């Protein structure tokens, strides 16, 4: 349980800072090209706690899936889980692209960032979480 909590906190901290750096700073101008699909900046800041809660939920779900089925697999298993979960996220972005007028470039760049995020999260969780041995 201790390693579970540490893995969750480490994953959450990484996802939080990566999300800020990649989506908030590096892709700022690309997001601005689809401004009509987003809330005004002041409104987003007022709802910022939902971003943090969403990222915490994402990190928690990741660690729970890893701990349930991939435990003992180490970093390679964490990376494998991260890639699979990001491909599922890309599939959701395909449905979003079909229904919302996002520029394709934006969704491609967000997906590239998503792969980096999930692979590194897999490395972090795989390196930290170890199942309790039966011996």
């Amino acid at each position, binding site marked *: 349980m201790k390693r579970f909590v540490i893995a969750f906190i480490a994953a959450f901290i990484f996802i939080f800072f990566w*999300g800020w750096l990649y989506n908030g700073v590096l892709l700022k101008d690309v997001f601005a090209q689809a401004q*009509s*699909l*987003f*809330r005004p900046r002041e*409104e*987003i800041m007022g*709802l*910022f706690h*939902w*971003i943090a*809660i*969403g*990222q*915490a*939920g*994402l*990190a*928690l*779900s*990741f660690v*729970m*899936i890893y701990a*349930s*089925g*991939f435990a003992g697999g180490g970093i390679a298993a964490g990376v*494998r*889980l991260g890639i*699979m*979960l990001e*491909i*599922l*996220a*890309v*599939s*959701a*972005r*395909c*449905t979003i*692209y*079909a*229904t*919302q*007028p996002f520029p394709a470039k934006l969704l491609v760049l967000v997906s590239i960032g998503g792969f980096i995020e999930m692979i590194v999260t897999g490395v972090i969780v795989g390196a930290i979480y170890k199942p309790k041995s039966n011996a």
Partner: protein
Amino acid sequence: MNWKKFFIAFIAAFVFIFVFGFLWYGKFMHDIHNEVPVLWRTEADFGSHLPWLVLGHVVMAFFLTMLYACFVPTGGAAAGAKLGILVALVYAGADLITFAVQPLTTKILCGWIVGDLIQFAIAGAMIGAIYKPRSPTTT
């Protein structure tokens, strides 16, 4: 990997996800979505982007099945539903982030989260009920 069972589970999951998505997001939530019309493509524009919707569902069903095959190869329907719920929680996290940055109503947010939970729990249970790993050959 038992590819025959894998393929059947994938097709069943795809059919369910596609039909459920049409009924839940396309029909049941249609008026709720239209409370924020600026977010959506027009009917004609949506029609020309429909292949992306189908592709998204195909990839979703395939990798949910793949995740199950790697995650709980002998688990059955209950374990499949559990995996589906955990995957839905990943989506719910993304939905909350989307809510913070896009002008979604709380009704849309709640509808998406509940839809994700139902969709992935049932799809996971179906995959768990269908997929069985190839049994080891005994000599």
